[in-house]
């Protein structure tokens, strides 16, 4: 297993994951600063392989999915929803897609794949909408450090998606403000320091189980 390349990709992904979150924030209970460390089971990098070539070649010609950096945010004790984030890497030559996710019913009753997106509103009242500020001048922050898609001044919405495409040779990150796996009807609060098993289903590569560490923040 090519640990180095995983670590490189995950380090890059981790940079993206923490984009928007303070790099100075204390990481409670987490003594590793590399999300992809597999040494003590901190984060599991697991893989699933799509259909092999008919001639049984040693290199699968299908998709080759690896997942790293799976984490879930801690939830307030009365919260009924939670979110899981992770990085999907398709190291194969065929496109794939995440089409479903599930957890044991003892964790949550339902699991959906969601994305957070900015929305247009039908209401054209000026103030809250990033587009129409004719009567006022604004100064805006100097870029950098935004979650997800960066359009933070309008309405945000989370909506279910049927799948998350993972093209061949690409990494797709599920991060705050973007794609996430939503846990509905949490049975118990998600507590820091615990792990939950999430089963991911990929269109080509099939099922993959990953362990998501419950944390207060990405790092």
């Amino acid at each position, binding site marked *: 297993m090519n640990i180095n390349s995983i670590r490189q990709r995950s380090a890059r992904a981790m940079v993206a994951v923490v*984009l*928007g*979150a*303070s*790099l*100075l*924030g*204390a990481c409670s209970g987490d003594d590793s600063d590399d999300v992809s460390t597999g040494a003590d089971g901190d984060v599991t990098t697991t893989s699933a392989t799509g259909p092999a070539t008919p001639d049984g070649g040693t290199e699968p010609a299908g998709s080759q999915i690896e997942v790293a950096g799976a984490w879930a*945010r*801690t*939830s*307030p*004790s*009365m*919260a*009924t*929803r*939670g*979110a899981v984030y992770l990085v999907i890497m398709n190291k194969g030559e065929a496109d794939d897609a995440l089409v479903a996710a599930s957890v044991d019913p003892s964790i949550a009753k339902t699991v959906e794949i*969601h994305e*957070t997106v900015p*929305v247009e*509103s039908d*209401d054209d*009242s*000026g*103030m*809250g*909408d990033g587009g129409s*500020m004719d009567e*006022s*001048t*604004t*100064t*805006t*922050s*100097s870029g*950098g*450090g*935004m*979650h*997800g898609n*960066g*359009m*933070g*001044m*309008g*309405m*945000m*919405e*989370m*909506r279910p998606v049927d799948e998350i495409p993972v093209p061949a040779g690409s990494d797709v990150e599920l991060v*705050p*403000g973007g794609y*996430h796996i*939503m*846990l*509905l009807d949490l049975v118990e609060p998600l507590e820091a320091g615990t792990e939950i098993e999430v089963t991911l289903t990929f269109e080509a590569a099939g099922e993959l189980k990953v362990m998501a560490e419950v944390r*207060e*923040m990405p790092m």
Partner: protein
Amino acid sequence: MALCLVGCGNDGDVSAGAPAGFKGVVRKPAIEVGSVALTHAVTGEPVEMRAQDGEILIAYFGYTGCPDVCPTTMSDIRVALGELPAEAAEKVTVALITLDPERDTGEILDDYLGHFFDRYIPVRVEDPAALQEATDAFGVQFEVADHQEGEPYEVAHTAISYVIDDSGTVVVEWPFGFDSPQMVEDIETALDSPAKSSARAD
């Protein structure tokens, strides 16, 4: 008045008279929210959108059923407060105004905010017209998705954090995704500059 110190103006258009150096979005004219009528989610007492003297209040409109946007913002603010010296952090209070009073009871809001902050105000306005007035005053838009009773639903909403001073003026706004280090800078800027009501000019 020494408003524009070295290093400010790096955000481009800083209108004359506006506090310099904020990293977030500054509107001219600023929004005044001190008289917006809101109620405490637990006690039912009136809540003013105005910080205590010399302090700041960060107001955010969201709902506790939100699994990604709201916890992310709450967490980012928490990280920022953790980076401040204690005496500065103690001058910051966070108010969450629920856009989902149907599901968000006072108890739920209190628990939710307590998960993130030590100093917080849970706000809940049950009357839809009153809630609409409050959101209009801030320029917040929201849409509660149609649903049958008991069915899960989402609320699309403006996810801006509003930093308010002790005169009820929104001094800076943080878009969704604004990062914690910049929040720290803006909090320090807000705490350093006197409220506009305390004009040094006599």
